[in-house]
């Protein structure tokens, strides 16, 4: 049960922190890919098999919300789960994003166990990782 993960955040520090938290959480990872905004994320998604996306909300070029919308329009990407990792704590905002199709939400600052809980919730404890396209 190892996964291909995509981490999307315009902050290099946050991308490193997310990768570190995923490593510390015990989740088995096959590959971790990175992107600094939604545009780069789509490039990765269209060239790599990704099992789950962790994405920030407020990014230049393309926000996390816009990324979710773009993925929903794409027949190949619509089924890839997106988890938002954001500093916004507003429940109204979380509810709005849930309606738009995000699978879960992790608030910053986060802990490794947040990622384990979410991966189990979103991908299930018994799902296999995907195959390369």
């Amino acid at each position, binding site marked *: 049960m190892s996964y291909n993960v995509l981490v999307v955040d315009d*902050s*290099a*520090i946050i991308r*490193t922190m997310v990768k570190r938290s995923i490593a510390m959480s015990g989740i088995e990872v096959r590959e971790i890919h990175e992107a600094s905004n939604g545009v780069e994320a789509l490039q990765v998604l269209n060239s790599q098999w990704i099992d789950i996306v962790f994405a920030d909300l*407020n990014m230049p070029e393309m926000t996390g919300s816009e990324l979710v919308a773009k993925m929903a329009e794409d027949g190949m990407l619509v089924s890839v789960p997106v988890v938002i990792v*954001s*500093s916004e704590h*507003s429940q109204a905002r979380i509810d709005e994003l849930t309606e738009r199709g995000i699978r879960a939400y992790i608030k910053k600052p986060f802990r490794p166990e947040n990622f384990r809980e979410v991966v189990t919730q979103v991908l299930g404890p018994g799902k296999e990782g995907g195959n390369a396209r």
Partner: protein
Amino acid sequence: MPAETHAEALEKVLTRILEDAAFVFAESTPQPPRFEGAVLVARLSYAGPETGEMQIGINPAFAGMLAANLLGTEPGDPLAQNRGFDAVGELLNMVGGMLVPEMFGPAAACRLGVPKVAEVSREEYESRLAGMSCRVSLIEESGQRIDACLFSDACKGMNS
């Protein structure tokens, strides 16, 4: 929400984020020491029940330590090198995200911008402070000063 409550919320959130995310322990002070040299300033706009801008000011060397703490490494680690701007921006991002529901309630809809970080002279920083609506100054254990401020029409004319 009155200015005093904004300042209380700002102090509470900044203190908590510094501890939880960066393992920095700091207390409020009414008499902060002067910044020596340049100041690293991060700014973040917000728009909701009120509209305004949040700002954090710290010294560049401390920003480097902040980056190392966020990454869970030592200040000399190459991973943390040249990450001070990023660290201050992310600190403000986290403060902003937690501050909004503190100020406006969990159900309030409020959008945050993208943090902008710049290094300014002490003189320019001090002149900016004069126009602030609310301000909190913290001192962390090694004596470093950390400022957090709000521009908001709601607390215009009142200082913490």
